[in-house]
């Protein structure tokens, strides 16, 4: 019998569904030259590809965090297996050192002692008030606490050197790959990458990879012996919280769009194509929804959702499940309140498209409306949908933080950038300031959102016919 049981949360299902949809879309794009050409333009955009590399790193973290299981409890042989209540993910397993080595409360990054003074029993009896030594942070140093800088610096340097060697390997592989493609025969693959003469922005990707590796590898190396980002109020590693927040952010950013997309596309096209009373009705619906200020509509809907969740505790077997469902519900609410913009955009575009001559030519052949929509209108709206998808992502990630702060975001037990900020912001009043939680959450969010924004720009430039 396996020592664990796989748990599939609803959000996991959607995440992997998204991955499958992404792969499917990729195949579809590969078969369709105009779309492929547009994506090739994205691929040639240096900034866009650098951003994509960063995004992929985040996505990787998020995916690792979307494979859940719970461990089998030690039980008497012969009895049916029982499983732990706690739901873990592959990321949790990989980050076990981060997850399990908790301190008592706050500690600064690279600290060896706790943030707050405590009464410590002296070996010879009696007590003294001092900053107690951390249980895990810098334990290997023993009494030599002053050596943190040298030790950490040396370890970081060693890790960076190894990361660099690994990166060189990647560069060589990319060089070999480029070298096999047709091009200027006089130049080797590496030379072509260096001079930026490749169709795909290899140099940007490799440079970004170098940056990521040189930061991430030493960071995790050090994380084995220090709390690199410090610990929070209950002594949990902030680095671990940042990692866990990534998945929440990604789900909010992606699943929300996924929820609203079918509705926006369907209603937008139907309104624009058929016009008449259908159009009036759909316009009425989205004007009504639009006229309720977004935050208030979300607030009202989330409040109501809370009531539903609180009055039906029997629906959820674990806390993780409840938090997960609440996350999805939030995605749905955000989706339902945000489809109107895209819908209006698509309606307007469809109105223009339906007057185009190739649509009329199809009508002259007696091609049915459904077929015209699928074959002629939908493919010509795809670029708008793709642009909207990537543009919305960053806004949603930012919105999550605000909503969680307001108290209408994710479940308070779920780690997210919003809950991290919310928990940490009261501590700014302390002396000395507890800054690391906030700094880590804001920086991680900034990197994620900046990468998403830059990538969105690259996609828009490549797909917008006016920009071409």
């Amino acid at each position, binding site marked *: 019998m396996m020592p664990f049981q796989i748990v599939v949360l609803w959000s996991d299902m959607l995440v992997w569904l998204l991955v499958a949809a992404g792969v499917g879309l990729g195949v579809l794009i590969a078969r369709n030259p105009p779309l492929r050409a547009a994506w090739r333009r994205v691929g040639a955009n240096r900034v866009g590809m650098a951003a994509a590399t960063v995004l992929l790193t985040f996505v990787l973290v998020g995916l690792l965090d979307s494979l859940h299981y719970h461990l089998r409890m030690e039980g008497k042989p012969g009895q049916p297996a029982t499983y732990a209540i706690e739901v873990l993910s592959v990321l949790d397993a990989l980050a076990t050192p981060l997850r399990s080595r908790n301190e008592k409360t706050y500690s600064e990054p690279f600290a060896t002692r706790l943030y707050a003074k405590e009464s410590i029993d002296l070996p010879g009896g009696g007590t003294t008030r001092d900053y107690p030594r951390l249980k895990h942070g810098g334990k290997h140093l023993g009494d030599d606490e002053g050596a943190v800088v040298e030790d950490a610096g040396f370890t970081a340097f060693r890790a960076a050197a190894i990361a660099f060697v690994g990166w060189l390997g990647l560069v060589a592989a990319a060089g070999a790959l480029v070298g096999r493609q047709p091009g200027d025969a006089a130049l080797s693959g590496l030379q072509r990458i260096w001079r930026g003469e490749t169709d795909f922005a290899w140099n940007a990707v490799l440079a970004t990879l170098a940056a990521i590796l040189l930061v991430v590898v030493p960071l995790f190396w050090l994380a084995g012996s220090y709390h690199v980002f410090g610990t929070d109020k209950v002594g949990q590693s902030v680095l671990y919280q940042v990692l866990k927040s990534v998945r929440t952010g990604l789900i909010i950013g992606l699943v929300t769009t996924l929820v609203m997309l079918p509705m926006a596309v369907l209603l937008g096209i139907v309104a624009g194509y058929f016009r008449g009373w259908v159009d009036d009705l759909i316009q009425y619906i989205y004007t009504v*929804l639009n006229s309720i*200020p977004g935050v*208030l509509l979300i607030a*009202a809907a989330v409040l*109501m959702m809370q*009531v539903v969740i609180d009055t039906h505790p029997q629906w959820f077997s674990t806390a993780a499940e409840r938090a997960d469902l609440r996350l999805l519900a939030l995605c749905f609410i955000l989706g339902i309140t945000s489809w109107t913009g895209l819908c209006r955009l698509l309606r307007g575009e469809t109105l223009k498209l339906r007057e185009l001559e190739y649509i009329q030519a199809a009508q002259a052949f007696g091609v049915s409306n459904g077929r015209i929509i699928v074959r002629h209108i939908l493919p010509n709206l795809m670029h708008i949908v793709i642009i909207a998808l990537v543009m919305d992502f960053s806004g949603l990630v930012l919105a999550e933080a*605000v909503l969680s702060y*307001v108290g209408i975001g994710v479940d308070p037990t779920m780690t997210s950038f919003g809950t991290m*900020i919310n928990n940490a912001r009261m501590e700014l009043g302390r002396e000395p300031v507890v800054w690391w939680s906030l700094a880590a959450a804001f920086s991680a*969010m900034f990197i994620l959102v900046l990468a998403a924004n830059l990538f969105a720009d690259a996609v828009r430039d490549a797909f917008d016919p006016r920009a071409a």
Partner: protein
Amino acid sequence: MLAYIVRRFLYAFPILIGVNLITFALFFVVNTPDDMARMQLGVKRVTPEAIERWKAERGYDKPLMLNSDASGTKVLTDTIFFEKSARMFVGDFGRAEDGRDIAHEIGKRMGPSLAIALPTFILGLFITVSFALTLAFFRATAFDFWGVVLCVAAMSISGLFYIIGGQYLISKVWRLVPISGFGDGLEAWRFLILPVLIGVVSGIGSSTRWYRTIFLEEVNKDYVRTARAKGLPETLVFFRHILRNALIPILTGVVVVIPLLFMGSLLTESFFGIPGLGSYTIDAINAQDFAVVRSMVFIGSVLYIVGLILTDISYTVVDPRIRFE
């Protein structure tokens, strides 16, 4: 033109009714008053009598839409829908959980909200439009490039960071202004300056970029070429020709939010302890005061629709094509 504006006004009513129905459905159909009562009372104090009392105190003990026990117009009027939803049309919002009259509270809190939101809006609009115009004027230069980079970076920063960072730096480290609070009369400016500043700064990134795109779209139009062919200096081309035309799309996004300024900002007000409608809403959300949230949703929609009508009217000012149709 008058018919156009009147038509716009008439169009607002069905929308308001729609909003009203949606909020009604959300607050009374998705969850019954019993659910709300249970939630408010807490697990320990839930007894059937307590629930009934809770409902009776708030008038939630009536039927939802139709009162079959009543007669005459009371069939319709003696219901939750009429008492709680329909009466919002005449400004009767009922009482909050703490027993205060919501309408009165709203009236009292609009002032502080506006004191923050209006300066933020005006200053922000002025700064972002000027910045965007400058970027468009120097388009395709290094200045434009780095300006856009700055915008993208600025819009990638969470709004919370601007508030927390600004409060920490300016009020706590430099001690220039009080960290939060609100005063009356001339004293108020000391409390206002920081939230306004932060409000302006946090909006710069995305608005500037948006306005710049609008300006650049106009720059490539044929009439701009005509203006240049007349020998007009570039500044005149920008201010007389491009700005006038770009105003039309800018107005769509800007005028509609003016009435919403009354609502204040949720984040700013709660961080800075300003007794406006934004913090009122937040407090209501945290206290799960459904009556207040419901009222705010309705008022927000009314203001939004007023904004839509204002947008239509402002079109007639800037766009002669609509003025004369």
